[in-house]
């Protein structure tokens, strides 16, 4: 794999290698001097057709910590808003010599189109495409879960380990969530058992082919399955109630919160070691209460920090390798040998 487009493309060995590399990166980030010279002279373009300050800053930080040159290309106010096509934008970036293009796009599959088109030579990193995939989010989630729950309950080095036997509940708007799709693929590849919890309107038709369980009820999942990690998904305000197509995916925010919000009562149902996750930004009081978001078992802020390490690892693995005569890089999954 020259690109990171979908967690579905990662096998177990590759995924573990990315997590191990991220651990190596994280170790450098507690130092006084966090910047490494590793990608000096390489150019990383953040191509954001969709606003996402958090993800862009995370990728930008990761690239800069590795000394890559970073170009931020935001669609807003640029030629894209004047009707420039993805193709012409890509050709422009290619002319500028981008070694990697980190792309966020509202159209599912846009990163695949970019990678398949030949418009750019560099590595393509999917930073979220439509309602399809957000692979670095899933990698940072897996990294966070592994750090806390693998290796004597997070006290021993989990290097080389996967997530075998862990149970993860992913709760909320699965239908529109690229985070959910990426996590189902990656966490199951790493050996975890995933249960999706959502009202039936927010579960996609065709979910039966996914390697996970689906429940419409949160309480029994928490009480009976005893998940090791609970991942709350953001609920988009525009999908709610009156005004939305068909009257919205659920009757009212209150009814959603009653059925699917993580509050103090539900928090108490969790095993002691369980962690609470959220990809951010949170709707406090809707899918997650302040009690849950601020509880000691919430690792939400740490997810953000881990995002930088994971994205450093991805950029390192895609960019630091041998430059082939065609201008491409070594395949990520060819290089999993541990010295």
């Amino acid at each position, binding site marked *: 794999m020259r690109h990171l487009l979908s967690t579905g493309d990662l096998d177990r060995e590759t995924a573990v290698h990315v997590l191990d590399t991220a651990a190596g990166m994280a*170790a450098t980030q507690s130092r006084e001097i966090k910047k490494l010279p590793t990608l000096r002279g390489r150019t990383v373009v953040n191509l954001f057709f969709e606003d996402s300050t958090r993800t862009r800053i995370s990728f930008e930080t990761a690239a800069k910590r590795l000394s890559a040159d970073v170009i931020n290309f935001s669609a807003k106010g640029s030629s894209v808003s004047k009707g420039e096509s993805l193709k012409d934008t890509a050709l422009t970036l290619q002319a500028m010599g981008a070694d990697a293009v980190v792309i966020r796009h509202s159209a599912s599959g846009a990163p695949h189109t970019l990678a398949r088109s030949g418009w750019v030579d560099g590595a393509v990193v999917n930073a979220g495409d439509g309602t399809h995939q957000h692979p670095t989010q899933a990698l940072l989630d897996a990294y966070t879960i592994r750090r806390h729950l693998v290796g004597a309950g997070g006290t021993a080095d989990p290097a080389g380990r996967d997530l075998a036997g862990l149970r993860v509940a992913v709760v909320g708007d699965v239908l529109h969530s690229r985070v959910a799709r990426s996590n189902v693929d990656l966490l199951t590849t790493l050996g975890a058992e995933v249960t999706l919890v959502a009202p039936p309107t927010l579960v996609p038709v065709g979910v039966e082919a996914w390697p996970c369980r689906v429940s419409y009820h949160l309480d029994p999942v928490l009480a009976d399955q005893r998940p090791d990690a609970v991942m709350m998904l953001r609920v988009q305000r525009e999908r709610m109630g009156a005004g939305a197509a068909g009257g919205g995916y659920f009757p009212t925010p209150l009814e959603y919160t009653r059925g699917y919000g993580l509050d103090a009562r539900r928090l108490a149902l969790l095993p002691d070691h369980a962690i609470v996750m959220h990809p951010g930004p949170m709707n406090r009081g809707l899918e997650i209460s302040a009690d849950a978001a601020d509880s000691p078992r919430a690792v939400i802020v740490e997810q953000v920090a881990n995002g930088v390490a994971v994205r450093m690892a991805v950029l390192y693995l895609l960019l630091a390798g041998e430059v082939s005569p065609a201008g491409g890089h*070594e395949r990520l999954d060819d290089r999993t040998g541990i010295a």
Partner: protein
Amino acid sequence: MTSGPTAPDRPDRRDRPDRGTAVVLGAPEIGRALTRIAHEVLERNKGADDLVLLGIPTRGLPLAERLARRVAAVEAGVDPAALVGVLDVTMYRDDLSRHPTRPIGTTRLPASGIDGKVVVLVDDVLFSGRTIRAALDAINDLGRPRAVQLATLVDRGHRELPIRADYVGKNLPTAQAERVRVLVEEIDGEDAVHIEAGEEGPAR
């Protein structure tokens, strides 16, 4: 790779067949060299105070640990484990784009850190000097030692940078294309230094 017939104490490498492997150092020579280096380090630095031995992965680390044990054997009250650290230089290399992606290793400093210390870098083979340059950069990001010195089991020549070792186990003239391979008990199950005939591609 196993060793060939019993190697003579000082093999005449000109006589060995092309593409063959010659054992140029065995376990006793390696042991003697490390003991000598340990004494030289102590002599030069007037004891083990403020001494830190940083092994460069992979085989520099067990060599650093052995040096520490030898130092501790000579200097009373020295805890060998407290002397040793490991310094991964992967992310400081200048040749990343010339090789397949290298896995990131671990960096671990002794609890006392390296500020104001005498850091002795320990590596198995000194060749172009680029690894040591990367190590100096890495050290620079980690702190400010009082001095940095270099110990290597084998110096095979062909330097590409103005770098020299302070302590050398064995000077080993080689051809550019030849490969020098250091085997250590902790990793390879035996102690030996091999020279292998060159193949295409950059030598290590």
